[in-house]
């Protein structure tokens, strides 16, 4: 589904990703881990097309198409979803209205009829059960006055509604207490499907207790330094990132 080849990305003139290779198939859950500043969030944002993240080399194919050629909104409509680490507030814009616009933009893109208000409310009802979303959250403005946990839940709720092919979770666990973490993880797990790929970017192993990945990759200094199965995450939890970073230096030398 996703094929990343020696991807290089600059942010504010600074080279952050120095050549990333990653292949993600439909049905798989990949965890990207790494110390602070390793470039894992950069990878997530570059894939979603954030304008401040400048791709300086490499290529990314999404279902055989050149992802990097697409606008961020085209990527989204094609089925790339990113759950933000810091979801922004949009004052005065009703959450349900926002979601309906997003969903209909996507449906239109795929030649499907747009949902009317009744159909949409029905859909929302179904999906909100999934995440234990309080209906009142939908009538509030987008993320406005939401707690940290509510914002993250809202992200996963949007994901459930938009049903992406590729979902990228950018440090979705940061700032969540254990109950909120479980809720979010349940939502993500409910979204696991043979036709969907999920990339979980996280600093801590904790989230991976609940969202069990098929593959774990470790980023350090803008490169993938190790890949493995879910047990790699546990090893990282035990040993920290230090041994890998040293390893890189050793290889480099």
């Amino acid at each position, binding site marked *: 589904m996703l094929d990343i080849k020696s991807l290089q990305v600059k942010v504010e003139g600074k080279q952050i990703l120095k050549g990333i290779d990653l292949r993600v198939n439909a049905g798989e859950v990949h965890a990207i881990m790494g110390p602070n500043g390793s470039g894992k969030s950069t990878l997530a944002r570059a894939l*979603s*097309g*954030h*304008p*401040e993240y*400048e*791709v300086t080399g490499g290529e990314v194919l999404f279902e055989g198409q050149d992802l990097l050629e697409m*606008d*961020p*909104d085209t*990527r*989204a*409509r094609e089925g790339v*979803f*990113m759950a*933000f680490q810091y*979801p*922004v507030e*949009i*004052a*005065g*814009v009703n959450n349900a209205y*926002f979601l309906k*616009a*997003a*969903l209909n*933009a*996507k449906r239109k*893109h795929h030649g499907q009829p747009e949902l009317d208000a009744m159909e949409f409310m029905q859909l929302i009802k179904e999906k909100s059960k999934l995440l234990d979303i309080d209906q009142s959250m939908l009538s509030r*403005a*987008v993320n406005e006055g939401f707690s940290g946990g509510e914002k993250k839940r809202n992200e996963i709720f*949007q994901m459930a509604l*938009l049903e992406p092919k590729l979902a990228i979770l950018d440090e979705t666990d940061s700032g969540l207490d254990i109950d909120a973490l479980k809720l979010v993880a349940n939502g993500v797990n409910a979204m696991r499907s043979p036709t969907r790929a999920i990339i979980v970017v996280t600093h801590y192993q904790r989230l991976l207790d609940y969202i069990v990945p098929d593959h774990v990759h470790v980023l350090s200094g803008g490169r993938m330094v190790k890949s493995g199965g879910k047990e790699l995450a546990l090893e990282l939890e035990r040993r920290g990132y230090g041994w890998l970073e040293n390893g890189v230096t050793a290889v480099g030398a």
Partner: protein
Amino acid sequence: MTTSPQTIEELATREYKYGFTTEVETDTIAKGLNEDVVRAISQKKGEPEWLLEWRLKAYRLWLSMKEPTWQNVKYDPINYQDIVYYSAPKKKKVLNSLDEMDPEVRRTFDKLGIPLEEQKLFAGVAVDAVFDSVSVATTFREKLASVGIIFMSFSEAVREHPDLVRQYLGSVVPHTDNFFAALNSAVFSDGSFVYIPKGVRCPMELSTYFRINAKDTGQFERTLIIADEGAFVSYLEGCTAPMRDENQLHAAVVELVAHDDATIKYSTIQNWYPGDKDGKGGIYNFVTKRGLCAGRGSKITWTQVETGSAITWKYPGCILQGDNSIGEFYSVATTNNWQQADTGTKMIHLGKNTRSTIVSKGISAGHGQNTYRGMVRVGKNAKHARNYSQCDSLLIGDKCGAHTFPYLEIRNTSARVEHEASTSKIGEDQIFYCRQRGLTTEDAVNMIVSGFCREVFRELPMEFAVEAQKLLSVSLEGSVG
């Protein structure tokens, strides 16, 4: 993909879609202004002597007045001798029905989405259509007359209801009020007149659509709305003009009078030609609007969506004279490209327990300059007066400006006055968030802006709220992206 600086720079590229002109034969008084022109206008309208005298008094005063310079806008001096003060589509005879209207004029209104056939209009909206200097049609008159409502052009009202006109004309905005009000009083050519009798709730929205067509012509209309005891009326005005390289002057006066327990809701969707993207052309919209809450428990609400004009200068205000009267002002003003707006309100509290609310939303994009200027005055007898003001500014890009000038004059210690102000920028992060959900940049900006304006839009009559939202998105088109 590198969007930031220039995305936000490229402002408003879509063409102004009401910029066409109509070829009609006109009856025009040559450019320039002097007493003879004032007399000629009055004569063309077949006015009584008292009105001519009133005009001349205003004209003579105007000659001694200076154009105001305190406002935060810049423009080249206006040559008042280079303006046509009267231009009307020629008619062959007295118009008895719409069928006799110049088909070109009629087509113009069709094209503007204002069909003048009653059955084609929004159900429940009566329209007075003003083309250059004169009213060309007023719909639903008979239906309204059956409940005693007078809705007609100002000129007709002068003929048919001279006593009412004489009683109220200049009672809220006297000819001495300011330079542009004096000019208007001297040369006004038409406008709408509304009278709602005691206890009547107007069964439909009343609306006036103003169209400037002729070149070098100024539009000087006067609107007078009177709501008698316990009456209710919701009135809406809309306006457009052709695209021309020269600036054109629009100096209107609107007066509202609300008696005991009467309510007037006055909404404006102002879409005069704003000039091109280099700031050439556009309407100078120098307007004086004021409402008098004369009676106990009366209420006047001004709602304005100002998206057009090269320069907007207007401060629709309320004189809260009756005890327990209420004044409200809800405003969205957009300046894009080189547009300038200096707008706000005046709330003058005279009666006891009077209340006023001001919600102003300024949006600046391109090189636009947007000023909120608002006065809250509490007189010494206005016990327990209350005011709440909220002024929010939204900036799109980094070449525009937002300015806020609140004036508070409080002469009664029991008054409670609150003022809140905020300035924010549409963030790239907000736009990106929306785009990541599949919305285009343009849709994202529209959504963010309409969220910003929500408190004002919800005050508009429903049919027009949708219209206003669309208009706003067109006027900001290209501001990001």
